[in-house]
């Protein structure tokens, strides 16, 4: 079996050695705090206190920064344009030709960008430091159907092969004279000769895969043994409970802040 674990970066750090659920709970708690604690700068505080130190400890900080910037920049630009310039009403802080920059829109965009940064960087941190097969095993032990984890893991393994196949088809059709560059019409015409061989070839493969699974007793019910063994400690279990308590506390705080003015009025 070829080892494909999605984005996983193999390193020997304390963070990599943690139980997958500990990391998952931690990232989800950070996400929850960043998204529901009020205040424009809340997500940025979570980033500095919650995400950055852990990313440094896991030695994946450069990867996290690079990919977070790549994903977040288009969002940030769109948010600042769509919300900053086209906010209805609001206080004008700068006139830019026919448009005007609004304070409320700008603050909204800063907060929105922060939330997206947390979602992206938290997810990246988790996937760089956690093998996806270990994460799936941990979730299966918590009750996720093993068929679901099979589907996710085998997809992660198929995809590199599929991209290779797509490139082969692209090269083959080009060498037969298929034009893939040029006007819009030419590029659109190239679509079917590229897509069809890929689709038909892979659908024909499905049956073979199903037979391969059946002869390995895939459809059999009952408990299954995993080759992987996950290491968990009492301290991690305690830490996870603590994180869940913090999350519940934050949710309660949010509901209180939301309800209090309504009851006061």
């Amino acid at each position: 079996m070829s080892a494909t674990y999605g984005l996983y970066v193999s390193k020997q750090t304390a963070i990599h050695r943690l139980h997958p659920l500990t990391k998952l709970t931690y990232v989800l708690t950070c996400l929850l705090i960043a998204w529901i604690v009020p205040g424009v700068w809340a997500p940025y505080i979570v980033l500095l206190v919650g995400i950055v130190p852990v990313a440094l400890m896991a030695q994946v900080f450069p990867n996290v920064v690079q990919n977070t910037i790549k994903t977040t920049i288009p969002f940030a630009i769109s948010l600042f344009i769509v919300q900053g310039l086209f906010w209805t009403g609001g206080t004008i802080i700068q006139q830019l030709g026919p448009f005007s920059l609004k304070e409320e829109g700008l603050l909204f965009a800063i907060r929105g960008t922060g939330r997206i940064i947390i979602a992206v960087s938290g997810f990246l941190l988790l996937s760089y430091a956690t093998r996806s097969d270990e994460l799936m095993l941990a979730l299966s032990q918590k009750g996720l159907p093993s068929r679901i984890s099979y589907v996710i893991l085998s997809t992660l393994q198929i995809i590199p092969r599929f991209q290779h196949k797509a490139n082969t088809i692209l090269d083959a059709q080009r060498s037969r004279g298929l034009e893939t560059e040029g006007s819009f019409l030419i590029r659109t015409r190239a679509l079917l000769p590229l897509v069809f061989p890929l689709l038909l070839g892979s659908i024909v493969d499905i049956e073979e895969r199903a037979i391969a699974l059946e002869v390995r007793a895939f459809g059999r019910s009952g408990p299954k043994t995993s080759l992987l063994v996950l290491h968990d400690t009492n301290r991690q279990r305690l830490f996870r409970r603590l994180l869940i308590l913090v999350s519940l506390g934050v949710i309660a705080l949010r509901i209180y802040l939301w309800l209090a003015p309504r009851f006061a009025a």
Partner: protein
Amino acid sequence: MEKLKRDFNTIALAMIPIAIAINIAVGQIVKALRIPLYLDSIGTVFVGAVAGPWVGAVAGLLSNIVWAFIFGDVTNTVPYAPVAAAIGFLAGVFGKYGWFKSWWKAVLGGAITGVVASLLSAPITFYLFGGVVGTGMDVITAAFRSQGMSMLAANFLQGLATDPLDKAISFLVVYLIIRTLPDRYIDRFSRADDIR
């Protein structure tokens, strides 16, 4: 329940990973050809058509989750998983009523699915991302917004500008695949009788 079990047979479970890989590979080909569409749910629509609404929904849901793990981008993937599930589900419903038996019904079914998809994605874009998707599509949103339209309505119209056409083409491609494949491959799937 018995029927659901038949839908989720081994062939369906072997098919879902292939379908997700198809979604991603075709999505990338379309991107490489610089065609302004997504076409990233052809696999999901195929699963829905040949294995029913529920398997289609699972394929759509998992597709968006796996997408995040491959490209490390959670923004345009995981939050829209319910939309992808709805697309697979609707493909299954249209398949059940024989809409994949004629090309124009497939196109119509795809267009309807596209309208539903834009209805479902607008609130997600609005509430989670403040109304932007981080692509060139935001120009459309900004244009509607500058006309004094509410953000939610602008998001819906932005979806409407691409989704119905995109899904109509996806459904048509699946129709063509079903016609092209030899009967003996289609026969393996639980809903084979509804689509031939």
